[in-house]
């Protein structure tokens, strides 16, 4: 059943520096990095030792808990370094990319004639499996458990994030092939959402249930859509895939190549000419960031991902495995005289306590990374609910996580949420509590104790 999902609660954070809808080819990155930390909860076991030549799509490592689950190199080249941190934990695989790219051949497949196990093992073998994540726990899907449904959100609401409609245009064939494959993996339906008034390349797909979504952020978050269409109960599993990753999966099936190419949005107020770039997973962010010029170079934060959920990668970092946005905003490492009581016009606030963003609903803001206050105990109540479109009590759930109360977490709806769903409550939090971290740790505890 197709559904019209209308979200009322939420907050659109309008920022300066939205990417212009023009795509340029990024300067070729020298070194590509794959960071095992991008795959939450996976303990890597090295396959490609330092010095090994790999082709694009050949595995760098596998999961310690599942040898079948391979993590591929995005490019062909030499593994020049395996960066390790404390206790020899692997932080990154660095691959020096070849000038002429060589691709591992996974053969062209006709998905329609494949059965579930064939699709599954093909995706695992080719390194495409990590693109499939699951709810609950927001980790890479467990291939042993069939999901009750698979969700793809084609509606973008996160601030400055790459617009799915734009980056997917012209990729209809790949997406369709991937959707057909996903259909084999579930007994339920594959749900795809598109913006209500948009001209999305995802709206014409076959074998899917299409939903239209409207409303402010976090309407584009896939958990919100799941909660509206087919909420997750205890014991149920739902898989989710980012739309841009469908392109990689589709291309694998259609051409037999693992092509990690991706169109990313370079956005943020520190970027002089924000626009889209064609690059690859794991590429150096500097290969796109400096291309269009940066304001106040010494004072920027480079984020792989959007400003609410992304990762601080520093200017010498690399594009994350799941990200298709690079945000560059000014650091806010400065004091502000009487900043706590003077009238505020240049920051976003959900209240009207001498903050005036309510007067200018369409103004775009240039926000810095300043926290605008210090960490405090939870005091204010009732504000999170205004930006949290779930039938869940956010404050109570956060408190349950903070005290490791597994029963309460389960009862209050922990199975339905991912850390990203708490990005907005974190944004408006008067006490500056780290909501996403609290939820991530809570999910990890549940995964460990309940499984």
């Amino acid at each position, binding site marked *: 059943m197709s559904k019209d999902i209308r979200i009322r609660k939420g907050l659109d954070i309008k920022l300066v520096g939205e990417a212009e809808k023009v795509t340029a080819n990024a300067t070729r990155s020298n070194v590509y990095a794959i960071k095992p930390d991008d795959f939450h909860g996976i303990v890597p076991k090295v396959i490609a030792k330092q010095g090994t030549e790999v082709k694009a799509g050949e595995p760098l490592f596998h999961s310690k808990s599942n040898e079948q689950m391979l993590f591929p190199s995005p490019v062909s080249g030499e593994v020049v370094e395996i960066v390790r941190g404390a206790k020899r934990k692997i932080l990154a695989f660095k691959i020096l990319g070849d000038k002429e790219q060589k691709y591992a051949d996974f053969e062209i497949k006709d998905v329609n004639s494949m059965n579930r196990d064939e699709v599954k093992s093909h995706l695992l073998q080719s390194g495409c499996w990590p693109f499939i994540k699951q709810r609950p726990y927001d980790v890479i899907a467990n291939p042993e458990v069939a999901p009750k449904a698979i969700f793809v959100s084609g509606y973008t609401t996160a601030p400055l994030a790459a617009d799915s409609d734009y980056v997917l245009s012209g990729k209809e064939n790949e997406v369709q092939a991937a959707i057909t494959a996903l259909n084999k993996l579930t007994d339920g339906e594959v749900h795809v959402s598109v913006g209500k008034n948009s001209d999305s390349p995802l709206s014409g797909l076959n074998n899917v249930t299409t939903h239209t979504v409207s409303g402010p952020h976090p309407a584009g978050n896939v958990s919100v859509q799941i909660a509206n269409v087919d909420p997750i109960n205890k014991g149920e599993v739902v898989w989710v895939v980012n739309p841009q990753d469908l392109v990689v999966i589709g291309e694998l099936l259609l051409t037999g190549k693992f092509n990690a190419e991706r169109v990313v949005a370079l956005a943020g107020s520190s970027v002089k000419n924000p626009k889209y770039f064609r690059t690859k997973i794991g590429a150096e962010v500097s290969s796109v960031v400096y291309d269009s010029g940066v304001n106040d170079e010494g004072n920027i934060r480079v984020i792989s991902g959007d400003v609410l959920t992304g990762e601080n990668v520093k200017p010498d970092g690399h594009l994350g495995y799941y990200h298709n946005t690079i945000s560059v905003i000014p650091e806010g490492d400065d004091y502000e005289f009487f900043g706590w009581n003077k009238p505020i016009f240049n920051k976003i606030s959900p209240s009207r306590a001498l903050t005036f963003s309510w007067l200018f609903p369409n103004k775009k803001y240039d926000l810095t990374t300043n926290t605008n206050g210090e960490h405090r105990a939870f005091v204010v109540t*009732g504000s999170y609910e205004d930006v949290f479109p779930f039938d869940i009590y956010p404050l109570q759930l956060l408190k349950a996580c903070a005290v490791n109360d597994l029963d309460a977490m389960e009862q209050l709806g922990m199975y339905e949420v991912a850390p990203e769903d708490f990005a907005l409550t974190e944004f408006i939090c008067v006490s500056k509590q780290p909501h996403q971290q609290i939820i991530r740790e809570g999910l990890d505890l549940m995964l460990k104790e309940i499984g």
Partner: protein
Amino acid sequence: MGLKDKLHKLKLKYKDKKMAPAFNAIHTFLYLPNETTHSGAHVRGADDLKRTMNTVIMALLPCLIFGIFNAGYQHHVAAGEIDKVSSGFFSPEFWSFANLTIGLWKVLPLVIVSYGVGLAVEVLFAVIKKHEVEEGYLVTGMLVPLIVPIDTPLWMLAVAVIFGVVIGKEVFGGTGMNILNPALTIRAFLFFAYPTWMSGDKVWVHGAVERASEIAGGAKLDAISGETVLGSLAQGKEISYSVSDMFLGFIPGSVGETSAILILLAGLFLVFTKIGSWRIMLSAVLGALAMGLIFNGTVSAGWISEGSKFYSLMSTEFWHHLIIGGFAFGVVFMATDPVTASQTNKGKWVYGFLIGFISILIRVFNPAYPEGVMLAILLMNVFAPTIDHYVVQGNIKKRMKRLKLKTA
């Protein structure tokens, strides 16, 4: 080198030292800190706890200023030195320099003792427990002088503040962890420890107690009477104040609680700024009206005789309860304290309604002291977690039912 850099250097110098919290409290008061995000969302909203608390203080300031003038005004009127107000809210009899000086002389020491003692305790605990000084006391410190009688001895106030902050808040872990509203804990301590200074017909007007002891000592002077409207009603006396006096606030009472119109405006301001909960305020008013109507109904049904000691309070027009005594002040500023109130939106309706309902109930039936909002709020503070528990259970049950339907 500007002040900003100097303070930054000092901050680095004091870092990890014992006095860091005390220094940071002053530093962050002057400057919004240079802290940047390190996990989760990279940008954050503009509001912090200081701004939130500051908004409440802004709403309280008109009440404080009115209270200062009213302290002088009540003193002069009771002493027979000036006439009663004649021309509405801006009457020159009220806003006079003489009233202001008496008021400042009496009220400012209350404010200074409240903030001085309270913040000292807060800083002490912050230093001992090595956490930052939290902002909760900014509002409490302003509330306390507004909810005590004008002649409260300063040493009593100091003792009560120490008790309230330590037992009411710090033993639970500080701001955000307390069960009872700290300002009301302070007032309740005063009320139970020094009842003669907190009730009766002498304490509400400056000079009345002093005069009474002079008369007792043999001086030939007229006694100053300072009965509150509720006090008069409880004793079945005629009240000499008009409804407009009560609404505008030209009546004796605790320092800041008398002007219903200013409290109403402050309430609207808090609702507009989204700092105060409109659910609690609205439902408390509804609860009070409901109880008032029940009492009025009891009287008009003839169930209670005119000789009953409850008769005059019960027969008070139901909506008058909103503008006399401390009800309006308590509902707008103390029932809405987010830490001690119900934390769920549904729970707030129940919590607020019961506060209004019980306030009027206690006000009418309390033989010792005809005011109920303090005890009603403290009582509901204790029950707020229970209310929330049932609201949250409702949500949990809904989720379980969904699961059952699915598996059935």
